[in-house]
C-alpha cells in the first residue's frame, strides 16, 4: 500500500479542526433550544418585529448600495485614472473599521454640531434611534461588498462587446442596459446578496446608533444580558436560520454561474 506523506495528514487535520471549530458551536446553537421554546419565541410580537426589521433594513441597505454603487462600480471597472487606487481603498474602509467606531463616526456627523447634522435636522431626518439610522449604518458596512462584486462582474464583460454595440448605433446608456448589465447581472446579484448578508449580521454599529427600534442581533444581545444564554438562543436560532438561507442562495447562484461558463 502507498504510504502517505506527513503533509497529507497535516491537510486532513487542518480540515477536521476548522470544520469542528465552525460547526460545533453552530450545531449546539441550533439544537439547544427545545421545539416548544422555538415555537413560542417565533410567536412573540417583539421577536417577529425585530427579525422583520433586520430583514427589511438590510434589504433597503442592499437596494441603496445597488442604486448608488452600480455606476461607481462600472466606472472603476472601465476607467484608468490617477487616484483610482485611493478610491478603491476608501471603498474598502468600512470593512476594516471596528463596527462600533462606524456607529460613532456616523453619529458624530449626524449631530447638531456638524453641518450634515444641521441639514438633516432641517430636513426633519433623524439618525439616532431611527430606522433611517439603522439603514444608514447598514449601507455603510454593506456597500464595499456590493461594489467589489459588481466591479468584478463588469470587469469580466469584454469592452469589445460594448465597442461593437456602440458601432451598431447604441448610445453608452443603451449599451450599458442591453449588453453590460445583463452580462454582469449574476455578479451584481451575488454582490447584492453579500451586502444583504453582511447587513443582516451587523450588530456593533447599529447598537450605537439605534438600540431601539430593535433589530434581531440587538435583541439577542439584550436577552443574553438580561436573562442569560438560554433565552437568547431561540432568537439566535431564527436569525441564523435566516442567514443560512441567504448563504445557501448565494452558493447556489455562484455554482450555477460556474457551470454555465
Amino acid at each position, binding site marked *: 500500500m502507498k504510504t502517505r506523506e506527513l503533509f497529507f495528514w497535516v491537510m486532513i487535520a487542518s480540515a477536521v479542526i476548522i470544520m469542528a471549530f465552525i460547526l460545533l458551536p453552530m450545531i449546539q446553537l441550533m439544537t439547544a433550544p427545545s421545539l416548544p421554546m422555538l415555537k413560542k419565541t417565533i410567536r412573540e410580537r417583539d421577536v417577529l418585529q425585530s427579525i422583520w426589521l433586520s430583514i427589511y433594513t438590510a434589504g433597503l441597505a442592499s437596494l441603496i448600495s445597488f442604486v448608488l454603487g452600480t455606476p461607481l462600480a462600472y466606472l472603476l471597472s472601465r476607467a484608468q485614472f490617477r487616484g483610482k487606487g485611493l478610491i478603491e481603498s476608501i471603498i474598502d474602509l468600512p470593512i476594516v473599521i471596528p463596527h462600533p467606531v462606524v456607529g460613532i463616526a456616523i453619529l458624530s456627523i449626524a449631530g447638531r454640531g456638524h453641518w450634515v447634522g444641521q441639514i438633516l435636522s432641517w430636513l426633519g431626518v433623524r439618525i439616532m434611534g431611527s430606522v433611517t439610522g439603522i439603514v444608514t449604518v447598514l449601507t455603510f458596512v454593506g456597500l464595499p461588498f456590493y461594489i467589489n462584486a459588481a466591479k468584478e462582474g463588469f470587469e469580466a464583460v469584454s469592452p469589445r462587446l460594448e465597442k461593437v454595440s*456602440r*458601432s451598431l*448605433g447604441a448610445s453608452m446608456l443603451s449599451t450599458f442596459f442591453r449588453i453590460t448589465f445583463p452580462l454582469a447581472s449574476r455578479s451584481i446579484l451575488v454582490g447584492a446578496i453579500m451586502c444583504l448578508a453582511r447587513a443582516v449580521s451587523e450588530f456593533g454599529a447599529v447598537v450605537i446608533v439605534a438600540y431601539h427600534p430593535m433589530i434581531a442581533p440587538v435583541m439577542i444581545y439584550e436577552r443574553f444580558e438580561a436573562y442569560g444564554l438560554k433565552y437568547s438562543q431561540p432568537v439566535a436560532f431564527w436569525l441564523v436560520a435566516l442567514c443560512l438561507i441567504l448563504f445557501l442562495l448565494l452558493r447556489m447562484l455562484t455554482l450555477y454561474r460556474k457551470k454555465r461558463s
Partner: protein
Amino acid sequence: MIRIKNLNVDLEEFFLEDINISIDENQFFILMGPTGAGKTVLLEAIAGLVPVKSGRIIIGKRDVTRLPPEKRGISIVYQDYALFPHLTVLDNIIYGLHFHRVKKDEQKRRSEALIQQLNLRHLLHRYPGTLSGGELQRVALARALIIHPDVLLLDEPLSALDPAFREEIRDALNRLHRLSNITFIMVTHDFAEALSLAQQAAVINNGRIEQTGTIEEIFRCPVSRFVAEFVGMKNCIPVRFNGTNAAVEGLEIETGREWAKEGGYIAVRPEDVVISRRPLHSSMRNSFQGKVTCVRDRGFFYEVVVRVGDTAFTSLITKGALLDLGIQEGIMVWVSFKATAVHVF
C-alpha cells in the same frame, strides 16, 4: 470616400503618427502590418472608439472626427467575433436595428437577405457559445451589415479561423463586397489575404504609414525595406549606385536605368531568381556564381539560399526543379535575374 488627414493618436501602449489615407467609395481597402503596428488602433480611431489627439477623419462628406461611434455610419467586425453571448444568433443579427429607424418590412427584408447570403437559417435560435469559428464570423458579418453602414471595418476577420473556414469567410467577404456599395476596410498581417481580396492597401509599421497605393504597386514596387520584406521580397540588399549599376561588395547588379541617388536598397522577389547548374544564355542581365548554403522545405516550394561572395540570394523553386537540378547544400550554382526584376528604393 474616406479621407484621413494628419491623424495622431496617443494611447499608452500604441500610437499613430501623422496618418494620411484616402480611400475611394466602395473600395476593398486593406491595412497591413505586423502585430503591434497600430492597425487595430487605426481601425478603432475610424470607428470613434479611441480618442484622437489631432487630425481629421472624413467619411463621405461628413467630418466625423468628433462624433461618437454610433453616429458615424460604421460597423466593426473583430477577429474574436465579439458576439453578445446572452443573445441568440437572431437577436445578435438584428441588434443594430433597435437603434436605426428602419420600417418593419424593410427590417424583415434585410435580415432575410443576410440570413440567406450567409447561410445562417439553421442557427438563428442558438446561442453564440455553441457555434464554430466560421459560423460565429458569419453571424458577426450579418450583424455588422444589417444596419447598412457606409463603411465596414474588419479587424483580422480571418486570422482566428481554421483554413477551411478561412476560405469560406474570404469568399463571403468578396461576395458581400460585390453585392453592396459599402466600403470595406480590413486589417491583416497576412499579405496573401490582401492579394486575394483588395484593390487598394496601405502598409503600416510602428504607428506610421509606410506605403499606400494599389496592391499591385505595393507588391511590385515597395518603397522601403520594411515593405519589401513584408510583401515577401526576400532579397533586400543595401547598395551604392554607379550609373545603371548597383554595387555591393564586389557584385555589380544591373538595374536597367540610372538612379539619382548614391545609396539605397535593391530588392528582388525570390520567385524571380532563377537557379541553374551552368551559366544561362538568356536575356537576363544579372548572373552570378555562388554556393548553395541552405535548402528549406516550404510545402509546395523549396527555398534555396545561394551565397555569392558576402551576399545571400534566396530563390523559390518547385520540388521538381530541385530534383532535376540535383540541388543540395554545398554545390555551386548560378543565380540569374532580369534587370527589370530589380526594385530600387
